[in-house]
């Protein structure tokens, strides 16, 4: 049966794209730079610093403008800002000290709350602008009234304004934008990759039940180039120093000097741009070649039939799994783990892989249910849906198991250079970090446990949607703490870009589905699959 994209599906996907695009662009222009705040111990002084980069584009004027804005905002709330010391712009004060100590202990990423910043490392040759202030209430009637009994809240209020971007400066480096691009690029690339993996697994294990839904896997798998292009754009921008996601791409860390990073220097045999590009292109190239040929053979099988092509795919499926076993771990190290380049975890690759896998299965489930609800693919019965539901349930467990194994072992051993990764996430992202785990684990476990739930469409759709976002959030938590520290938000930019990508992905997926009959014609296990029932 041929599939046609209905006009409604077109409308929905285009709306998603347009709304997403508008929100994203709006979010991009209201992005603000990260200003690091630190309160003195007695709570009377607030130190603000702005981590500059080698080619940081924020100008001194903007920094001065920020100071003026904050002063003005304070005044309107009856607070006068005072500068206790002569800590002005570029002074060799606190910020400088911190800067030096950071480079001395390349692997000592320990830091106080709020300074989740090994990318402070990016601050290059220019000393970071620092501004230390105190404040007191203006002794007017209104001022006394407003802050009566709340004088101790003045400094925290100022800090909160800066932290919450009520007062801030525009970000010309668009760190948040690039981080989001990486998150979405990787997440949606992962969905296609997961589908490719599962397709290969299905062939290599001689599974029969899923023969009727293999075309859906192919459809999802063939969106691979989209994610690949986005990832390449992000890496290219990193290589050209347009973004600062990968700290090891910063050449100044490789030469002795202020920014020298001993650890990164040690790792430069692996983490260097040429090798990184070779690896990246090899992964993507191999995946694309396999995806291309699986599709080609599958279409040819439709025409020719016979077992030859089936066994060819069986063997190539096994071969793909060999490549995938190695590449899935390595790409996770290269693309994600190297954001926190000082940190390492042997399990990381397998953990990322489980996230990829589940996102793919959710996409398959949703596509299946959509097609079925539109009257396509009558061969799909409740047993197929149940089976995909089981996969979602099982991989949720696998993901949670790997999440917990990684977290618990690092938490338990409490070794400085490892635990910093989670420390940063717990201190700055506590709610999101544990919330994501709880949702991705508990929701499918409790609600998808029963047989009936896995056969009830409404439950499947609701749970799948929630954990789909949950696994996007998981990627978010892998990237953001390393790139923009505690300066994170989930605002128009994040939501907009997610919707934009989702719209494009679904549209491309549906378009792929139109290009071949929805059910394979000559798969030798088709009959078994059509009669799949348990």
């Amino acid at each position: 049966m041929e599939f046609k994209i209905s006009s409604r599906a077109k409308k929905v996907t285009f709306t998603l794209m347009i709304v997403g695009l508008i929100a994203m662009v709006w979010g991009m222009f209201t992005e603000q730079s990260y200003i690091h705040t630190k309160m003195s111990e007695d709570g009377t002084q607030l130190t603000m610093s702005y981590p500059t980069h080698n080619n940081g584009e924020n100008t001194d004027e903007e920094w001065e403008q920020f100071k003026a804005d904050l002063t003005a905002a304070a005044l309107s709330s009856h607070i006068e800002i005072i500068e206790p010391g002569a800590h002005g712009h570029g002074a060799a004060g606190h910020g400088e000290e911190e800067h030096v100590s950071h480079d001395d202990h390349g692997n000592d990423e320990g830091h106080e709350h709020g300074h989740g910043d090994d990318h402070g490392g990016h601050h290059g040759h220019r000393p970071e602008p620092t501004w230390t202030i105190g404040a007191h209430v203006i002794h007017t009637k209104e001022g006394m009234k407003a802050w009566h009994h709340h004088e101790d809240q003045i400094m925290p209020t100022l800090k909160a304004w800066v932290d919450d971007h009520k007062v801030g400066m525009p970000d010309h480096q668009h760190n948040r934008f690039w981080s989001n691009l990486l998150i979405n690029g990787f997440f949606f690339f992962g969905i296609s990759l997961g589908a490719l993996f599962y397709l290969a697994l299905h062939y290599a294990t001689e599974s029969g039940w899923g023969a009727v839904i293999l075309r859906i896997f192919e459809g999802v798998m063939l969106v691979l180039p989209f994610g690949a292009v986005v990832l390449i754009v992000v890496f290219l921008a990193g290589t050209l120093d347009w973004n600062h996601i990968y700290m090891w791409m910063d050449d100044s860390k490789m030469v002795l000097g202020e920014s020298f990073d001993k650890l990164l220097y040690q790792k430069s045999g692996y983490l260097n741009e040429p090798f990184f590009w070779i690896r990246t292109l090899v992964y993507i190239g191999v995946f694309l070649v396999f995806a291309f040929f699986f599709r080609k053979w599958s279409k040819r099988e439709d025409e020719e039939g016979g077992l030859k092509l089936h066994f060819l795919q069986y063997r190539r499926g096994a071969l793909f799994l060999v490549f995938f076993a190695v590449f899935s771990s390595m790409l996770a190290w290269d693309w994600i783990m190297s954001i926190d380049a000082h940190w390492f975890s042997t399990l990381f690759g397998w953990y990322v892989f489980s996230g990829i896998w589940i996102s793919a299965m959710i996409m398959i489930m949703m596509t299946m249910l959509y097609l079925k609800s539109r009257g396509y693919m009558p061969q799909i019965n409740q047993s197929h849906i149940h089976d995909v539901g089981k996969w979602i349930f099982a991989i949720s467990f696998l993901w949670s198991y790997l999440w917990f194994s990684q977290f618990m072992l690092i938490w338990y051993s409490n070794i400085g250079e490892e635990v910093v990764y989670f420390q940063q996430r717990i201190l700055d992202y506590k709610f999101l970090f544990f919330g994501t785990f709880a949702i991705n684990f508990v929701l499918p476990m409790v609600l998808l446990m029963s047989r009936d739930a896995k056969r009830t469409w409404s439950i499947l759709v609701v749970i799948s949607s929630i954990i789909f976002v949950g696994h996007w959030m998981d990627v978010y938590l892998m990237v953001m703490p390393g790139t923009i520290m505690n300066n994170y938000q989930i605002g128009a930019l994040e939501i907009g870009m997610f919707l934009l990508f989702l719209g494009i992905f679904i549209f491309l997926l549906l378009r792929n589905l139109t290009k071949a009959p929805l059910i394979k014609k000559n798969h030798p296990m088709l009959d078994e699959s059509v009669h799949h029932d348990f």
Partner: protein
Amino acid sequence: MADKVIYAMYDDDDVLKDGAKKLVGKGVHVADVYSPFPIHGIDPIIGVKHTRLGINAFLYGLTGTMLALFGIKYFMIQDWPMNIGGKPSFSMIENLPSFIPIVFEFTVLCAAHGMAITYLLRNKTLPGMPARNPDPRTTDDKFVMEVRVNENTQFSEKDLQAMIKETGIIEIEEREV
């Protein structure tokens, strides 16, 4: 009142299933079926309800989780807090990661054993229980259908026997119980 039971023996599971379907279609109530292995699809035909043992297992598991959590909270947090590996046990939540493994194991322990015991009790299978299968061959390669005369009073015994005989049986036997 003494009841009469007709035991019809088949040598193929599919033939029995066919026969049961036909008989049930005519309004005969099939009391039970004895077989050497589970015949798939027989339950809805003869009206055997789906077991709720699964729900039981879930409840036993939940009990296990709760017991483990409360137990550990009492042992490690309330009764005798210890400082182990620089992780003082002042609060449950901060030590939770290292309690998860035992909570999990205990959950599985309770769910599995609880369900197994319930299963044995519900099936009345315990050491020393007598076997109640009508013919020893039903644990080898024969399939027996049990029809009670009392439950099928709308038919005469003769009709009942005749109807059953049409379904491809190999033996038929009537017993008083």
